[in-house]
């Protein structure tokens, strides 16, 4: 089993007619993802390599029964695109676009929670999600992932997500689902959302989690793992040696307290029983040990 998306997931692409959208939408389709429609307010009735374009998400959902959407709209339009998807009946929204203003993200995160509590948003500024062999939504190169299980991956960093998939494939370890949650200030899907889903998924037997400096998402995930996750977890946190960013004012420091450094994050994860590697390769090796002992 996979989490969030699988071979039955029908996906529409908001921005399929654009350069990025048509390129990655095409690659996703080639991979086997059910790419059923695209949207563009002025190009309804046309198609992109055989994929029909509708004027709105609501019309595309009505015509195709899609439950997921993938957003390749430029940053200024993402706020409206997310709301259009939710109002149009989409349940799982993947926003790939980077550079979305933090105030927009905070706004639509809270708007969705209030008016569309059953909608799950992934991103923005994320590589997307892949359930290897079943469904690939976003910009991950599908062939670097080995289908099957037993490992589920959740990552805040794009290239390190690929690195993790690749390290596991080199060791002939399969992946149920790999979720790139992105590194923006207000990610739609959190580590905890993914940990919860992996914990509930019978085919996922172990979890690999890749974090980054900044914020407190890793510390919150560690707390969640300690209390709610029975499956073994390996982890890596990028930025152990990153210089502290120049900070203006005090509000940030007051909010974060001692949190946010890679050391604090790794300490919290170790404390929760997570096997923490010093680099991505080591985290992969730790996962290989975990898998060998399952």
């Amino acid at each position, binding site marked *: 089993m996979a989490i969030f998306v699988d071979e039955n997931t029908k996906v529409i692409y908001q921005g399929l007619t654009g350069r990025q959208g048509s390129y990655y939408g095409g690659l996703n389709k080639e991979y086997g993802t059910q790419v059923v429609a695209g949207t563009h307010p002025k190009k309804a009735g046309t198609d992109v390599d055989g994929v029909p374009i509708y004027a709105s998400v609501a019309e595309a959902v009505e015509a195709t029964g899609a439950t997921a959407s993938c957003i390749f709209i430029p940053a200024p339009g993402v706020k409206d695109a997310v709301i259009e998807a939710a109002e149009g009946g989409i349940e799982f929204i993947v926003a790939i676009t980077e550079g979305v203003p933090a105030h927009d993200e905070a706004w639509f995160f809270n708007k969705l929670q209030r008016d569309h509590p059953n909608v799950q948003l992934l991103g923005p500024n994320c590589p997307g999600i892949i359930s290897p062999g079943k469904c690939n939504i976003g910009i*991950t190169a599908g062939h670097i992932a080995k289908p099957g299980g037993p490992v589920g991956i959740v990552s805040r960093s794009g290239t390190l997500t690929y*690195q993790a998939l690749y390290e596991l494939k080199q060791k002939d370890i399969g992946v149920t689902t790999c979720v790139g949650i992105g590194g923006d200030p207000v990610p739609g899907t959190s580590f905890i959302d993914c940990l919860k889903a992996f914990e509930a998924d019978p085919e996922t037997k172990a979890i690999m989690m890749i974090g980054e400096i900044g914020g407190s998402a890793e510390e919150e995930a560690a707390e969640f793992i300690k209390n709610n996750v029975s499956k073994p977890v390996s982890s890596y946190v990028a930025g152990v040696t*990153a210089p502290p960013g120049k900070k203006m004012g005090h509000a940030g420091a*007051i909010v974060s307290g001692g949190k946010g450094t890679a050391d604090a994050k790794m300490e919290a994860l170790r404390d929760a029983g997570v096997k923490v590697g010093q680099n991505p390769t080591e985290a992969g090796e730790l996962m290989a040990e975990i898998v060998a002992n399952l």
Partner: protein
Amino acid sequence: MDLFEYQGKQFFAEYGMPISAGEVVFSVEEALAAAERLGTPVMVKSQVLTGGRGKLGGIKFAADIDAVREHATNILGLDIKGHVVERLWIEKASDIAEEYYMSFTLDRGAKKHLGMLSAEGGMDIEEVAASTPEKISKIWVDPVDGLTDELAAQWVDGAGLNPDARDGAIAIAKQLYTSYTDGDADLVEINPLILTPEGKVHVLDSKVTLDGNAEFRHPDYAQYDETQTRDDREQAAHAKGLQYVGLDGTVGVIANGAGLAMSTLDVINQVGGKPANFLDIGGGANADVMAGALEVINDDKNVKAIFINIFGGITRGEEVANGILEAMKRVKIDSPIVIRLDGTNAEEGRAILEPALNDMLMMETTMLDAARRSAELAAR
């Protein structure tokens, strides 16, 4: 994007907040002229993009013109935490009865905007937060609702300010929140927010960080971009559109993706090397981008070896390899390069690089080995 104090105050003033009259100056003569126009007493305030100026002698009260000359002379050129003072803000001095603290920023954990207000304003607010957190009144504002009148009043009443400050503080709270959201700020902070002996609430300092991602709806942000303090290397990288942070080590780093770039610094440090920079060239690795990155790294005189760390995802290994070779033809490199190329079609990419290898261009298959090799080369 960080704003100088005077830029932040002008930003606040656009939203109706009361600030003092002042002028930005770049020399002692200009400072004297500004003080004459404003009328003494004035404050002579260094303008640097870092905190803690006051404790380091960067803010002085000047009762008369002679004092302005003395302080301006001393403060211009002063090094404050690595920032050399080039500009001063000369401001009409205010009488202070009480000092407060007020700010808004995003609480990433709560995914709401967090307002903090304290009657114990002034320089040591972090100390207040650590030792007596109950003295900071906090509110979490849902971005969909915004800061309502009711919530603003509740917040101010919870902070235990002087009753005389209540109405003024509520008004400024609402203006500050509007500046924060409409202005797309990551942080707006007033410390101190003062109550004058006449009972007026007034902005005496500003810290503003704007969200560069929102520049598309704020054309006026360009003026702030010009005044960001960057070293020469950072300036060159910024001009080429590269994500670059200068560090003080000897191993130049080029990687694709912020996570991988950060991870590269980690690994270099682990093997005993010292990275000279953080440089993320983004998803692709074409010849243009690679050449630009190599130029920036090569111009850094501290660099003794270069580590190129590329993971091919959608971008295939052979494209990356060709890009590197093409870039090397365009830029004359002074330091040896160690390449680690992995991911999609890595074998094909390595085969392309193979014939070009020599003692100035080396290749390793793992990140750890490549880090070791480049650290050794840099140590020679």
